């Protein structure tokens, strides 16, 4: 494997958890719910995925349980914000804080233990294509799922009736309710989908990225995922581009340092964030287009009038 391939592979590993968490949050936000608990759901998914993989010896079972944990944990958020109509921002933040603490307790006995890594699955024929084969078709299962999810969500949101309903709820929940669309039920499903994606992102962290469990190992990736959703103006393919751009700049700056490029390392560390802001400014120049993509009911609680 040459240097370019190795670099791209590192970028892909770094981008996958961001991509997963962001695509999940995108669906949640498209339905009009703002869940700031992504970081908490990721870390919960990571703790449980590691524990299950370690105890059962099966990383696939671990990944599955990580996703289920994320979904179950998000139900707590769903119950509070959708059924009890609490403030979504405050509830989401407390979900993050709870997740960080709770995961530390779950994972306490697993600190420092060797993990059970998810191995690559080579897809026959395709993986032997020169250059791109080893990159795209010799990856772990979570990478494949992340790519399928991007295209799946894109198709669901913009090509299916159910996707149209979900977007309608996010844009105007009162009208959608009046037309007989089940607002609360749809939002519950969206929130759980978001939780499952975040949980799977956590599983990727502790089974693929760095096969180990340590407290706070998500290290702020949930917040970056939240930013990526806005960055991608709530469109799946732009989120894909954003996650890979962010990953590329992050890894690129490490390589620049190793090459001895004479740029202050603090500046290089800030580069991924600067790049995100620049692109954000560029794509929000067209105000009308941005407004069109922003779910109009984002963050607002819904109480059915009858």
């Amino acid at each position, binding site marked *: 494997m040459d*240097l370019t391939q*190795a*670099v791209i592979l*590192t970028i892909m590993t*770094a981008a996958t958890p961001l991509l997963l968490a962001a695509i999940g949050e995108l669906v949640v936000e498209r339905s009009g719910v703002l869940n700031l608990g992504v970081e908490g759901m990721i870390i919960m998914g990571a703790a449980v995925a590691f524990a299950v993989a370690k105890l059962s010896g099966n990383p696939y079972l671990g990944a599955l349980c990580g996703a289920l944990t994320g979904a179950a944990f998000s139900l707590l958020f769903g119950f509070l914000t959708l059924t009890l109509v609490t403030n979504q921002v405050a509830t989401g933040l407390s979900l993050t*804080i*709870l997740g*960080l*603490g*709770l995961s*530390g*307790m779950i994972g*306490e006995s697993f*600190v*420092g*233990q*060797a993990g059970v890594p998810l191995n690559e699955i080579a897809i026959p024929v395709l993986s032997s294509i020169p250059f791109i084969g080893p990159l795209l078709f010799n990856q772990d299962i979570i990478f494949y799922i992340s790519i399928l999810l991007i295209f799946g969500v894109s198709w669901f949101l913009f090509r299916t009736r159910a996707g149209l309903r979900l977007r309608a709820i996010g844009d105007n929940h009162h009208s959608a309710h009046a037309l007989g669309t089940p607002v609360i039920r749809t939002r519950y499903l969206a929130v759980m989908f978001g939780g499952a994606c975040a949980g799977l992102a956590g599983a990727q*962290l502790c089974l693929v*990225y*760095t*096969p*180990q469990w*340590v*407290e*706070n*190992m998500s*290290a702020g*990736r949930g917040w970056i995922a939240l930013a990526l959703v806005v960055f991608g103006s709530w469109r799946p393919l732009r989120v894909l581009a954003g996650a890979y751009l962010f990953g590329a700049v*992050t*890894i690129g700056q*490490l*390589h620049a*340092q*190793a*090459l*001895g490029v*004479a*740029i*202050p*390392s*603090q500046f290089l*560390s800030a580069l991924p964030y600067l790049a995100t802001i620049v692109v954000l400014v560029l794509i929000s120049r067209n105000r009308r287009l941005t407004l069109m993509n922003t779910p109009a009911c984002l963050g607002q609680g819904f109480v059915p009038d009858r």
Partner: protein
Amino acid sequence: MKKYILAMSAAALISMTAGAAQAATKVCFLYVGSKTDGGWTQAHDIGRQELQNHFGDKVETVYLENVPEGPDAERAIERLARSGCELVFTTSFGFMDPTIKAAEKFPDVKFEHATGYKTADNVTTYNSRFYQGRYISGMIAGKVSEKGVAGYIASFPIPEVVQGINAFLLGAQSVNPDFTIKVVWVNSWFDPGKEADAAKALIDQGVDILTQHTDSTAPMQVAAERGIKAFGQASDMIEAGPETQLTAIVDTWGPYYIKRTQAVMDGTWESLSSWDGLAEGILTMAPYTNMPDDVKQMAEELEAKVATGEVNPFTGPINKQDGSVWLKEGEVSDDGTLLGMNFYVEGVDDQLPN
């Protein structure tokens, strides 16, 4: 965060019950990370446990973990001081100013700050001569590396880290004059993902030996995966790389904590700047593994010489990175220069961030 709160309330509970056992000296610790981080903070917590086991009922130890450096730290230190701690150890460089500020408000409480340089009547600084271990690691790297290039994952450009980089390179150059190192700054003490990415970037660029001044075992794990050798940091990381770790610089704070607590009990505690090393046992080397027998023997001999002071890593002739003379033949650096070290020695392939 929740754990932090739990630890606080536990501390409050303990302080209420402490009234009964008058004799116990209350010793408190402030940790920047989790006590099970497998590195820096874990080493301090092992020291705390040794202290507890040594004195048994006569001391009571309390700790707060995951306290971020900054304004929160000051509040946390004050809370500890108010809860009746007689001796407070603040165990991260970034706790320096908060410790000094809290010490002004609580003149009767004794404070000890790890790795800093500001003292007061009731504030001692304590540190370990980590660079001695890094010099030995460097020598091993110089012997084991085939390409003569090591990767160095660094946290923040503070003197302690710069010292480490210089000592490592000098150690390597003592056996291989052409040895170079590549440095990557991750601007974090603890971010397993980023540390792993830095390790991958360095290996992709051709280093065949890895060392780190960050706290997680992720770089060791990447090195194991890619089949190169690496050095552990702060704690013995052999579990993360049984076939990978050459040795590790192990922080052994226990004896120091026992000594200082005894001083508080005896009423002989005084403010000082303590900087011990291999000789005093505050720094130990993990077993030398995964290397040829002759290198192992050389490392053991060097360790003995550094401990007795026969070998001092910072002995001239040494040039600064720009080629100007720092130490002349036979000249030895004073501690002041080392504690404020803000320059590289010749041969480091990196621009030192300001």
